[in-house]
C-alpha cells in the first residue's frame, strides 16, 4: 500500500489521465446541469417572461460584494468568513506557483503567481474557515437543523485539497509523496463533485440570483439584497 501510494505511476496517473477525466466530468457535468436547468425553466415558460438583465446584474452585484446585502450586514462575522473562504478557495489554486509550474511543464503556459508565503496563509485561511463552518454546523441549532450528512462530506471535499496541499507543501506529518497524491486526488474529486453535489452552487449562484433579482425587481418592485 505504502509503495503504491508513493509510486511514480500513481503520481503520473493522477496528474495525467485523471486530470483529463476530472475536467471532462466537471465541464461536461456542469454544462449538462446548466443546460438541463435552463431547459426546465424554458419548459415551464412562466419565468422567462420577467427575466431582466438589469435586475439580474443588480442582484449578483449586491451578493458578490461583501456587506452589500442586508442579510450580510446582519451577520458580519459569517460574511467575513464566507468571503475569505470563497476568495481564498478560488484564488489560491489558480495562482499557485506549483500549479503553474505543472502547466509550464505540460503546455509551457504560466501566469503571475502568488508568493509562496501568501499562498500558504490563504490555504490556512481556507482550512480555518472550513473548521468554523464545521463547528457552525455542529453547534448552531438552526444550522444543525438543516444539516444533512452530505453537508459534512461536501465540506470535507472542499477542505481536503487544501489540507493535503498544506501538508504536501510543508512536507510534514506524512510522506510527502502520499500527501501529494492525495492532494491531487482530492482536487480532482472536488472538481468532479461540483456539478453533482451542492457544490453546484458555484454554477447556480448566478442563475438563482438572476432569477430572484428579476422577480424582486420586475414583479415585486422591491430589493432582494
Amino acid at each position, binding site marked *: 500500500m505504502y509503495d503504491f501510494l508513493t509510486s511514480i505511476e500513481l503520481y503520473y496517473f493522477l496528474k495525467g489521465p485523471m486530470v483529463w477525466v476530472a475536467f471532462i466530468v466537471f465541464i461536461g457535468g456542469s454544462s449538462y446541469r446548466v443546460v438541463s436547468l435552463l431547459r426546465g425553466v424554458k419548459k415551464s415558460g412562466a419565468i422567462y417572461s420577467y427575466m431582466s438583465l438589469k435586475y439580474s446584474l443588480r442582484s449578483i452585484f449586491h451578493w458578490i460584494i461583501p456587506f452589500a446585502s442586508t442579510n450580510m450586514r446582519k451577520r458580519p462575522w459569517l460574511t467575513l468568513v464566507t468571503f475569505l473562504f470563497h476568495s481564498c478557495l478560488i484564488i489560491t489554486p489558480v495562482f499557485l506557483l506549483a500549479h503553474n509550474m505543472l502547466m509550464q511543464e505540460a503546455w509551457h503556459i504560466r501566469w503571475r503567481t502568488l508568493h509562496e508565503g501568501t499562498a500558504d496563509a490563504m490555504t490556512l485561511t481556507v482550512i480555518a474557515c472550513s473548521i468554523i463552518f464545521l463547528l457552525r454546523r*455542529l453547534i448552531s441549532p438552526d444550522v444543525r437543523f438543516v444539516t444533512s450528512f452530505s453537508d459534512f462530506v461536501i465540506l470535507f471535499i472542499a477542505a481536503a485539497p487544501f489540507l493535503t496541499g498544506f501538508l504536501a507543501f510543508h512536507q*510534514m*506529518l506524512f510522506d*510527502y509523496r502520499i500527501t501529494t497524491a492525495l492532494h491531487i486526488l482530492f482536487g480532482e474529486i472536488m472538481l468532479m463533485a461540483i456539478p453533482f453535489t451542492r457544490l453546484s452552487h458555484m454554477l447556480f449562484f448566478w442563475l438563482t440570483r438572476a432569477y430572484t433579482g428579476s422577480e424582486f425587481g420586475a414583479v415585486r418592485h422591491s430589493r432582494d439584497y
Partner: protein
Amino acid sequence: MKTRLLIILSAMTVIVLLFPASGYSGEGNKPSGNKMSEKLVIAHTEIFEKPERPQVVFDHGLHAAAFKKEGCGECHPLTPEGNYIFDFPFSAATKTAKEIEDLYHEKCIGCHKKVIKGKNKALPVRCGDCHVRSLEASTIKYPVFEFDFAYHDKHVRALKEKKGKDDCGACHHTYDTLEEDESLRLIYEQGTEESCYYCHDLKKKRGPELSAITQAAAKKGLSIRKVSHQQCINCHLGYIKAGDKAGPVECMKCHTGKYRTISELLNVHRPEREQPKKPFISIEDGKMKGVSFDHAFHEKNTKTCRSCHHETLQACKKCHGMVGSTEGKWINVANAYHDTSSGSGCAGCHKKSKADIKCAGCHHHLPDMDIQAKGPKKETCTVCHSGKKEGFITGKRISLASLDPKKVPEEVTVKILEKQYQASKFPHMKIIRKLAEVSNDSKMAASFHRTMQTICRGCHHQSTAEAEAKDNKPPYCRNCHSIVFDTKNLNRPRLLAAYHRRCLTCHEKMDIKGKGCADCHKEKVPQPKDLLTDTYNMRTISQRGA
C-alpha cells in the same frame, strides 16, 4: 447525527493510521557520511535572495557518474573557447530568476522523465523530491583546496614533461587594463606570474593598481572559486579526453581537507621567478642602515608567497614609500615592515612566531616592537639593520661555555621573602640550559638571540651587560623591586609580585608543571597555635588591664 459524526471521525482515524507518519526524508539527497562527498547546494541566493522553496541538495557525483559517457556537456555550457562553465549549468547567458527557474525545471525534470520512461523509476520529478524541506537549512561546505608549493611544483614538472618546455602560461596570465581592445587584455607575460588570489579573490580590498583588475574580474563574476574550477577542471578534462595522464575532476580528489605543513613543504622546490636569494633591503633616504634579508630562507618557512607579498610579488618598497601614498594604502615602508598587527610584515609575522609555547615564556612580557620609541631596546634594531651586505647571520648557536660558574650560579636560593614558606631553591642553570636549547633549536630564535645576554634578559629584563660585568654586583631582582610597595613607582611590582609574576607566568605560558606554592618553596611545619602570640588579643588584654 452523532452516529454520522462518529463515522467521519473513525474514517479520518483510519486514514491517519493507514499511512505511517514517516515524513519524507528525501532519500538520495540527504548528506550522510561519505555520500556527502559529491553533493552541492543549489540555491542561487545571489539571484533569488530568499528562495521560496527549500534549496536543492544536488548529488553531483551521482550525475557525473551517470553521464560519464556523455560528458560534462550534458549540463554545462561551453565558452566560445570551448571550455566548460561550471558555476551555472545549462546556459551561460541565463541570468534572470525566471529563466534560471524554468531552465532547471525543464532540464532536470525533462531528463528525469526520460529516464523514468526507461528503467529507473525512483528519479525525482515532484516538487518536494528535489526541494526537500528537511534539508532547507543544511549547508554543504567543502574544505578549501590549497594549491601549495608541492602541487605547484608537480604542475610545473608535468607541464614541462608534456610540452617539452616550461609552460607557465597554461595557468598564469595577467590583465592589461590599459589595452583598449578587450579581447586582447588577457595576456601572458613571462616573469610576471603571480598568485590567482591577487586578481580573483574578490572579497579583499586591494590597492589602486590591483583593484582596477579585481573590479574587472568582479564584473565578470570571476571569483577564485569560479576560475579555479574552470581553469583546473577544463585543463584536466582536456588531458583526459586526449587519453593522457591528467589530474582529478572529482570534487573530493582536490577538496580532501588535508593540508601540508611548512615542514612537509620544506624540501619542495619553490616557484622560480628570478627572485633574489639574499637581497639587501636599503631604502633611499632611510634613516636606518640596510637589512640583509634571507629571502630563500623565508620562502622555505612560509606556505605561500602571499604570506608576505599580499598584493604583488614585487618588492615591498614598490608600493610602500618613505611616506604614505595611495599605492601603499597610506602605509609607509617603516610601518609595512614593523607593524606588529600585520601578518604580512616582518614584525607582525615574527610576533606570531614568538607566541609559540616555547618562546612565550620570555616573550609574553617583552613589549612589541615600537619603531617610534626604538623599543624595546635600541640594540634590537641593529640585529636586522646591520648595514652589512654579506648576509644576515642565521643559525649561530649560543654557547654556555663562556658562563662563569662563580657569577652564574647553578642554583639560587631566594631567602629574602622567607616567611610562611621556606626559602625557594631556584634551578638557575637548568633554566638557562633549557632556554638556550630552545633558542638553538630554532633558526629564527638563534638569529635574533645573538649572545647569551639576550637569553638572560628573559628574566633580568632591565639589567645591563655593563652592570652584570662588575664584580659582586649580581643582577638581583631586589635591585629594583623592593620588598615593600613603591608608592612613587606605581607600575613597579614589589618583590613578591615580581618573582611570582615572572616565574608563574612563564610556567603558564610554556605549560611547565609546578605551579603550586609547595612546588617552589616548601611550607614551614606549623607550630601549635596555642604557642603563637596573638598580638591583637595581647593588646586588648593589656588595654583591659590598664
